[in-house]
């Protein structure tokens, strides 16, 4: 059950649309910076495949310039 955090850099002037688009994806939480064009994205999925798919979905967003992974946790299901 991977939990991953990323720094997501929006395209110029696209911070708000990136926030909206990522917020609509399930298993995703967005924390926008107050004063910079940067978002933190935390994903929480059931397995590696789901995690990969979700990452691909985020990377496909037009408003995204760059997605950089910061930390990853893989927690066993019953822990």
């Amino acid at each position, binding site marked *: 059950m991977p939990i991953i955090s*990323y720094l997501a850099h929006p395209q110029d002037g696209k911070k708000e649309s990136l926030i909206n688009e990522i917020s609509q994806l399930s298993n995703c939480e967005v924390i926008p910076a107050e004063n910079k064009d940067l978002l933190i994205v935390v994903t929480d999925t059931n397995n590696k495949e789901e995690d990969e798919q979700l990452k691909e979905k985020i990377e496909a967003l037009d408003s995204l310039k760059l997605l950089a992974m910061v930390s990853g946790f893989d927690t066993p299901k019953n822990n």
Partner: protein
Amino acid sequence: MYTSLTNRRSFIKKMAAAAAMTAAATMFPGIVFAKEQEAGIPSGNLDWKKGPCRFCGVGCGILVGVENGKAVAVKGDPNSSVNKGLLCVKGYHQTMCIQAKDRLEHALVKKNGTYVKTPLNEALDLVASKMKETIEKHGKDSVAMYTSGQSTIPEGYVASKLMKGAIGTNNLDCNARLCMASAVAGFLTTFGADEPMGCYEDFDYADYYVTWGNNMAEMHPVLFSRMLEQKNKRGSKIIDFATRTSRSSAASDKSILFEPQTDLAVGNAICYEIIKNGWVNKTFVEKHCNLSKGLTNMGYGLEDNYSFTDKPEKINFEEYKAFLEDYTPEKVAKISRVSVKDIKYLASIFGDPNKKVMSLWCMGVNQHTRGTWMNNIIYNIHLLTGKISQPGNGPFSLTGQPSACGTAREVGTFTHKLPKGVVMNPEHRELAAKIWKVPVERIPAKPTYHTTEMFRAVDRGDIKFIWTQVVNPLVSLPRTSRFRPGMEKDSCFVVVSDVFPTPTTDVADVILPASWHIEKSGLYGNSERRTQHWDKMIEGPGETTPDAWMTIQVAKRMGYGDLFPYSEENHVEEIYNEYRQFHEGKKHGMAPLEVLKKESGVIWPYVDGKSTQWRFNAKFDPACSNGEDFHFYGKPDGKAVIWQRPYEPAAESPDEEYPFWLNTGRVIEHWHTGSMTRRISVLHKAMPHSYVEFHPKDAKALGIRNGEKVKVSSRRGSCVLPASINERGLPTQGQVFVPFFDENMLINDVTLDAFCPISKEPDFKKCAVKIEKA
């Protein structure tokens, strides 16, 4: 203990978010994530309690969410005008250190070389009897206390009362000597009154922020974010004047680099230009300033028992002008490596009568063998142009520690200080004796040991008992290579109060288990004269006890019970009410406790229910009484002093054998010696160890690769660290930089115990080292 899956997952998510925030903070100076505070907060009935942040002198207001007696969340206090709901990475995660497994929960007494868990009462009996016995055998000046700019106001107050009022020795100093003493000496010599005249609201009006040797993006992150906000909103400009390219430089409009120690010369060159170009505010200078010079070639305090007293002498404007002829931009450019154009540019910022300018500085200016002079020179620039004590216009000396102002400076936990004034002044001693209810003769009129000299005296065997509180000197002192063996000697009985084990507790004979920040009530005072109160929020583990209460307990055991009639329940309130009497009046009146309990901090002077935001300006300050627009009432004649202070070289400069400058400092992730932040896993993971920064050209010449182990040595000691090339910061060529937070890489074994002869503050920014592959 059972932890539900949901709880565990939400905790891990919070950790993941925190790791990303920390990474972001190191990449983008001043970045803030207000929403994360709300997002990460557990649902349920949290009881939010207000207080100041534990970590730095900015003094952000925090709200701690408490559930079932546990601190489960921290967020910025939206009612605090300091941070308006924002916090930096250290602020968000501060309470996480409470969970550290190696917390000191019980007293430990060293018996036959091993630490034995001991009931606190017994340990306090031992401390009191040792202190008493030492005084009886060797006199009262054989015992000492060393406290902190992180001690609360009541903790500092009872330490001062015990040492100066009860025992009758001035053997009390604190770690603010290592960070703010030059600022204090600067304020007292120029204005006769300590602490900044302005307040943080200045940020909202200034057109320029000139930062002098100050990496605010990492050291004062929330204030830096306020500057960035104004830069975006109003086009204010940040000018970074430093010896190292840092995160702050990257976010500034202009970065100007200078050769270490030559800030003195550049400051004087700015004054030269201001006069030459007719930018002096003549009416202001004539009405409100005197000019003076002091002694020069003072030395550097490198020898034990060094002493120095300045001899001020009045001069006239023409003499000052003639002195500045040595500091033309052309001459100064040669020694400072700052171009003539940049010197003229800096001068023109201050010289423009239509621009509001704030100067901001902290350790670069203060930790300087001519730190008092450097503070004086910055004030000279603002006094010559009359840019002072007005919204957006003024010199602003920033503080490092959360209560360096409130406790160290206002309560006065320095050897020469009293809660009001100094021990040398008979009136100040009279007042202290009256409030403390002790005979005035008991308070000695002569200061004894400042910090460096105090630890030299321990090493020499002159001090035979020392009690340290809220401080980790064996990581933070300069030249720990001398002071660690000194503290280990049997000649001195060492008592250390702390929350976690440190290299200082390692040499203790008794370790006392101190309460952490929110496990006790207290008051702090931040950089802008703001006093902040908090109530105890949670219970501490084991026998942990507030330092103030342990001091009171020892005082009682030593027979001074009548001077310490405080109750365990209400001692913070009782002590504050007693302390407030020292500052009564329009110049320093402190807000009553009832007001502090309600508000998210109150700025002093608090007069007729109102804070004084800009001191010495008659429009804002009711203490002004000379009928003029400005009144520098700290000085008897109401005038501030423009000081003639020359450039003099550093105590030790690079030479053939030791060809590099060593500069030391901090990083955003860690607070000072890291004893708390290295126990907060997200901060520790983000910055797990120290390093030595090189300029890429120097690294290339030495054949050193990034990450490679390198030995940094001076004439005092050495330290092995991994090399860092063009990562967090970039020192100028010929200089290396090392953060001091890591107790496993003790860079202070290498630094030099030279200090400013006036302030006695050591210079951690300049000494000579050589570099070898380890």
